[in-house]
């Protein structure tokens, strides 16, 4: 019994060794959950085209992805929010940010008797989430929705209870449009100390609470709203127009702001200028160490990034992610050469 076990384990060990020598490159990665559907599609398609490269991605959340990258337990990470200066300074090695896809967040609500799309001014959204606007017939909401019979009912505010990239984008937007928000609640973050409201876990938790609770408002990912046919409102952009989020509008937002994107791609693109852009959107990033000792891994990562920026982008819209703007793709392609 014991002997056979030994033989089996020896055989397993030898075959694993043989595989490794056969040139299979195994890349480990971990991080954001928001882009997980597109990442797993990419890694799968890329593996089929390059059978010797296998990328193993754990969608454990942006925070976990950053921690594992810093600890050196993964080859690269992924995050819905860019790493802060403080986090970068803690790292023992230099980390590069590569935007991969764009995501957007939309307001969804449950108001009996209101069937059309509501318009939300920037002040209205900030006021509702600060708890200063408490009734649906508040003048700030009513003035953008003439002709809609808004009830004199208390607004039930719903937010995410779990740390999430969706919350990061939402709070980034609210902080940009409201000084009071910035002062009271602070910077964009995956979790904040909400002044009001109930928490729902995940997009499905928020949607469930909003659907069930009369007079509720919540925010969810555009992808989730599109895939599940959940109605959502229009949001006022920096030019003053009310825009309904769609995949093209999100790419437009990033294009509009492309000139302002810094060299390290750590940028927030909420509320950019432009008449047609949807204002609540963001990149999501891959976090790649600048120096990779293992030649095989380094070349595999660089090749994957090139593939992701060209072939890979074609898969985005099928999964309801917006494509990267052309300028950003061009600049990222240049940045790949920084990896050494």
């Amino acid at each position, binding site marked *: 019994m014991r002997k056979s076990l030994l033989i089996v384990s020896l055989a397993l060990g030898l075959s694993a060794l043989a595989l490794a020598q056969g040139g299979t490159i195994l890349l480990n990665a971990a991080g954001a959950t928001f882009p997980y559907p597109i990442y797993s599609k990419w890694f799968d398609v890329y593996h089929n085209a390059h059978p010797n490269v296998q990328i193993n991605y754990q969608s454990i959340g942006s925070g976990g992805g950053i921690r594992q990258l810093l600890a050196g337990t993964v080859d690269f990470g992924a995050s819905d*929010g860019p790493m802060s200066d403080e986090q970068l300074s803690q790292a023992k090695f230099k980390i590069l940010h590569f935007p991969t896809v764009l995501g957007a967040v939309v307001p969804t609500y449950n108001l009996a008797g209101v069937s059309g799309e509501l318009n939300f001014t920037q002040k209205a959204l900030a006021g509702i989430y600060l708890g200063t606007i408490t009734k649906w017939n508040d003048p700030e909401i009513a003035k953008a929705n003439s002709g809609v019979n808004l009830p004199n009912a208390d607004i039930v505010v719903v937010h995410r*209870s779990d740390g999430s990239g969706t919350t990061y984008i939402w709070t980034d937007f609210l902080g940009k449009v409201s000084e009071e928000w910035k002062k009271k609640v*602070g*910077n964009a973050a995956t979790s904040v100390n909400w002044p009001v409201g109930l928490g729902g*876990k995940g997009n499905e938790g928020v949607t469930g609470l909003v659907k069930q*609770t009369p007079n509720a408002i919540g925010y969810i990912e555009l992808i989730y709203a599109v895939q599940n046919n959940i109605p959502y409102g229009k949001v006022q952009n920096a030019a003053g127009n009310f825009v309904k989020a769609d995949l093209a509008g999100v790419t437009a937002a990033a294009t509009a702001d492309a000139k302002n994107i810094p060299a390290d791609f750590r940028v927030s693109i909420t509320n950019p200028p432009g008449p047609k852009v949807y204002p609540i959107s963001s990149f999501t990033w891959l976090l790649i160490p600048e120096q990779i000792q293992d030649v095989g891994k380094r070349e595999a990562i660089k090749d994957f990034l090139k593939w992701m920026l060209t072939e890979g982008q074609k898969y985005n819209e099928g999964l309801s992610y917006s494509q990267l703007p052309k300028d950003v793709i061009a600049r990222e392609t240049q940045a790949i050469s920084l990896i050494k």
Partner: protein
Amino acid sequence: MSATATTIVNEVPPQAGPRAFLRRLRGGDEIAHLITLIFAAGIILLTSMLVYELWVNSHLSRAKFGWMFFFTKVWDPNFDNFGAAPFIYGTLVTSAVALAIAVPLGLASAIFLSELAPRKVSDVISFLIDLLAAVPSVIYGLLGIFIVVPVMRTTIGPALINTVGNVPYIGALFRGPNYGVGFLTAGIVLAIMVVPFIISVSREVLLTVPREQREAAMALGATRWESTWKVVVPWARTGIMGSVFLALARALGETMAVTMVIGNAPTIAASLLSPGDTIASIIASQFTEATGDLYLSSLIELGLVLFLITFILNGLARILIVTTERGGGRPA
């Protein structure tokens, strides 16, 4: 948890004398003794390692907040200010509500199954109840969202506000806006989850009460109910309490189902209809995305606090059992 589990085991006095010792040697009991000892020591080692890890990794948070961690009401990842008070409150309140509902329900069912129902019916029902205990908690959470929450919002909540809500003192428990999610809803869902434990364990314990006890009571002229309530239940008291504390341990640590129905707003409010949050639920919600070191450390310290609460409540349970045993009931 293991501490409560051991309380329900009936001690069998060891057989003494030289013959017993000889048999022990022949049967290889010394080896069995050694193996079980190693495993038992393993459990203790595991627990101490758990506490050690929680203690070490919560260092940042303990150093910064000290004892104030227990009393601070704010949980603000953005300004690095963390306190456990609303979560401790939520954990205790939801568990108390759960036990208040589950104990009478579970005990009554166990008495019915062991004393009154025909043995075959009792066996079939107990089998089904044991199955209930194996249902994953996320399923209970979904049931909570789709069934309990709407009923709470449209029917039970308003009914409580309009009736009990007007009573002085107790009324404070049932006031304010009623969202359907909150302490009471979480408590009800927890009660549904823990009641199978109480029924299953209590029934087994009640069945171990010797038939002579019942017969003696009846012979003295007691009715069936009198013999059950005055003789059988007190005899099984230790075991029943063990089942209750097993249920409590589950309620304290429940994560998924609670997160789905409690509203996830760290508040301390007298009203049971108010949304709240518990220790287990916030750890589950925020651990994955916690980026700052202090943030992570505070979440780990919350884990330590939950361990402490479980430890204290288990200790109290043991004391309670010891004192009631001394007070009578089962003969020594």
